[in-house]
């Protein structure tokens, strides 16, 4: 009860929040959002197997709770704008305070709603997809932990809790990617994801340490207030702190050159890929940059990092998009497209467009979650990940086909689906940036982003034609998935179609205002009206991609000849080998570590450290021998034996006085009393 009373503590009033609501009871109890899934996860672990649906109902209940709570907060935020922050002190180390906090503002509310809604769809779907799996209960325990960890991350009011959520997300993703651990390749993929993230996490830690030491607090509000007040100490280190944090974000959000883990992470079950790519895990990096956005945007602080950010984003969006063109595994096509879209988000952040980047995160969550679930539905039906085993599924799986088409068109950025609006806003922001701070770099990035839009439409057209058109090439008789799987597809399909209308510049700017509900000003630029020129170019390029894709692959799909005509001499091997980056890492990083460095470490361990330990042990043995024979046996034991034998002999002599005669004892008693009285008289 004391804990509960502390949790309900007074909100932290801040002068800047005067015009915004504190969210009332709904915000004060928002700490339940991460806690409920984590508590129910333990429920699944301990009682899941005894429940009728194997623990799925608890997982679903957790996501339903988060979805309802998140949407309720979203509606409230849309009407009045909420900023609330609660914190409980956990520990105090010197002047640093470790806290558990929950922040309820525009950014976190958007993430709660996205994680909840997409999570609800994915968890419902996973019941059908994972049916009959040997580790069904275990899967849902880890899956609930995955969502709960992401909620810990996005609800955190300080950097320490953010790291806790960050690492829990990493752990849960490791468990889920390696869910089918019977196959060694899946273990390797899980380990790769974990290790690549861990390397990038070093950056995050360095950034957190620099900021905490400079500002003296882990709280986002304190850090961002220091930025707003122009703290000169922070300004001096801001570039390195911002860069280090961004490196951490690059790992989680799989930016070039840390992108290598994400395609391999397809080894996990498809619902995992769906949630990982839509709402949890990869969005964490973009979220972190969004959370710390004023640090990057305020002049005199980490503004220079934005140039790195936009270049990294552009490289990622363009290079990984091309790889998607040559993949046969449908999940890998989608994985590379996620990388590409994450590149868009990062580039938008780099262009100083807080709203545009997070808006793309928002819409992308719906259509990418949808596309993965559709892919899972297809994989469920044909028992293969490869598009060369698919084809002609349009008639056999009508709902999967329709929803996949909606998702693909949304991803390609076709009017009026969600992707069109968010991608257009990113293009507009980069274009604006090229006229201001960004300069020539931003202009080049703009071209890359437009080219990326073409590539996106191109590879999605390929995926649609190879999967759903032509003749069926696989084995068995595929059929439409059960309703528990198709209903979530339809739900997400509707959201993919309409989510874009949440932010139409100049017409309805709801999303911009939702996100602006923060204690400090973001200082970002968002377009006042639709940039019809850029929107037209974006749409034209996307349509061109669709047309080109149709020309190249529709006929192939129909005739079943040469499934892949995209075999340009130099480019194809380069793309098929993923620019040899994995080989480079294997030879350049993993090889030396496994070879010379491991051998050297082993040698050091065996000869230097073990030698030292052994020598120490030998000296200890020698010294203890001396102590044993000399001191212990001769000295201490002698004293003990003397005392004990003296006691024994004294007892032998004195036992004759216990005659058993009561009157003797009484006489002794009186004699003693007399002696005491006499002694008393003498000595006083």
């Amino acid at each position, binding site marked *: 009860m004391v804990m509960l009373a502390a949790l309900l503590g007074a909100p932290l009033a801040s002068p800047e929040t005067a015009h915004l609501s504190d969210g009332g009871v709904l915000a004060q109890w928002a700490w339940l959002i991460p806690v409920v899934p984590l508590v129910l996860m333990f429920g699944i672990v301990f009682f899941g197997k005894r429940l009728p649906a194997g623990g799925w109902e608890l997982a679903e209940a957790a996501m339903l709770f988060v979805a309802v709570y998140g949407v309720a907060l979203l509606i409230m935020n849309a009407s009045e704008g909420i900023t609330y922050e609660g914190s409980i002190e956990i520990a105090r180390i010197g002047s640093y305070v470790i806290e558990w906090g929950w922040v309820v503002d525009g950014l976190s509310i958007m993430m709660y709603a996205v994680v909840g809604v997409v999570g609800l769809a994915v968890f419902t779907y996973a019941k059908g997809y994972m049916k009959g799996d040997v580790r069904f209960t275990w899967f849902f325990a880890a899956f609930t932990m995955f969502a709960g960890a992401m909620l810990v991350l996005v609800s955190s009011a300080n950097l320490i809790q953010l790291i806790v959520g960050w690492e829990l997300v990493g752990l849960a993703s490791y468990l889920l990617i390696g869910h089918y651990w019977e196959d060694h390749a899946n273990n390797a993929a899980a380990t790769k994801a974990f290790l690549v993230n861990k390397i990038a996490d070093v950056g995050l830690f360095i950034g957190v340490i620099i900021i905490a030491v400079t500002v003296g607090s882990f709280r986002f509000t304190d850090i961002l207030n220091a930025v707003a007040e122009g703290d000169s100490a922070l300004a001096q280190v801001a570039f390195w702190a911002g860069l280090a944090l961004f490196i951490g974000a690059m790992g989680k959000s799989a930016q070039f050159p840390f992108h290598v883990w994400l395609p391999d992470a397809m080894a996990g079950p498809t619902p995992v890929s769906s949630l990982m790519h839509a709402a949890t895990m990869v969005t964490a990096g973009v979220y972190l940059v969004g959370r710390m956005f004023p640090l990057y945007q305020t002049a005199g602080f980490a503004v220079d990092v934005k140039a790195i950010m936009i270049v990294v984003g552009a490289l990622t969006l363009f290079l990984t998009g091309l790889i998607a063109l040559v993949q046969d595994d449908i999940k890998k096509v989608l994985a590379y497209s996620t990388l590409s879209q994450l590149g868009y988000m990062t580039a938008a952040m780099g262009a100083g467009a807080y709203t545009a980047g997070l808006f793309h995160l928002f819409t992308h969550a719906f259509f990418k979650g949808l596309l993965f679930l559709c892919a899972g539905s297809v994989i469920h039906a044909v028992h293969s990940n490869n598009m060369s085993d698919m084809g002609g599924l349009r008639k056999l799986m009508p709902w999967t086909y329709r929803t996949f088409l909606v998702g693909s068109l949304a991803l390609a950025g076709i009017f009026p689906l969600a992707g069109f609006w968010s991608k257009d806003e990113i293009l507009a922001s980069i274009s604006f940036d090229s006229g201001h701070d960004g300069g020539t770099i931003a202009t080049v990035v703009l071209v890359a982003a437009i080219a990326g839009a073409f590539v996106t439409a191109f590879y999605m057209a390929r995926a649609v034609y190879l999967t759903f058109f032509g003749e069926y090439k696989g084995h068995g008789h595929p059929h439409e998935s059960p309703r528990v799987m198709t209903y979530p597809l339809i739900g997400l399909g509707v959201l993919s179609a309409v989510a874009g209308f949440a932010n139409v510049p100049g017409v309805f700017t709801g999303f911009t205002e939702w996100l602006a509900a923060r204690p400090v000003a973001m200082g970002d630029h968002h377009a006042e009206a639709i940039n019809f020129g850029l929107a037209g170019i974006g749409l034209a390029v996307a349509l061109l991609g669709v047309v080109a894709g149709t020309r190249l692959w529709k006929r192939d799909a129909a005739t079943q000849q040469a499934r892949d005509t995209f075999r340009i001499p130099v480019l194809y091997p380069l793309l098929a080998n993923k620019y040899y980056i994995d080989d480079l890492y294997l030879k350049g990083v993993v090889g030396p570590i496994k070879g010379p460095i491991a051998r050297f470490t082993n040698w050091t361990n065996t000869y230097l450290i073990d030698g030292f330990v052994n020598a120490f042990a030998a000296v200890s043995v020698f010294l203890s021998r001396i102590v044993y024979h000399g001191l212990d046996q001769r000295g201490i034991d002698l004293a003990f034996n003397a005392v004990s034998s003296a006691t024994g002999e004294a007892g032998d002599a004195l*036992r004759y006085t*216990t*005659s*058993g*005669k*009561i*009157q003797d*004892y*009484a*006489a002794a008693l*009186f004699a003693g009393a007399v002696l005491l009285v006499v002694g008393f008289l003498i000595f006083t």
Partner: protein
Amino acid sequence: MIVNQFLVLAALLFSIGIYGVLVRRNAVLVLLSIELMLTAVNINLVAFGQYVQDALLSGQVFALFVITVAAAEVGIGLAIVVLIFRNRSSANVDELDLLKW
């Protein structure tokens, strides 16, 4: 009031009591001797109580407590003596040498 005569009487009684406890073999007489010692103490208490003119009469009241406790004690003592006599057909103290090593 001279307190000495009472103290002498009490000392005599106490000594007789000690003599009885240490020398008599019959357990009943040992108990009687203990009563003598308690009586000596009571005389002392009453004498000193009168001597210091205590307004609360502590000495006299305390003597009453001693008498009560003594009655209880001798009751238990006699019960033990009776039981021992039934068991061993003897109430001689010097034959009760069970409390030895």
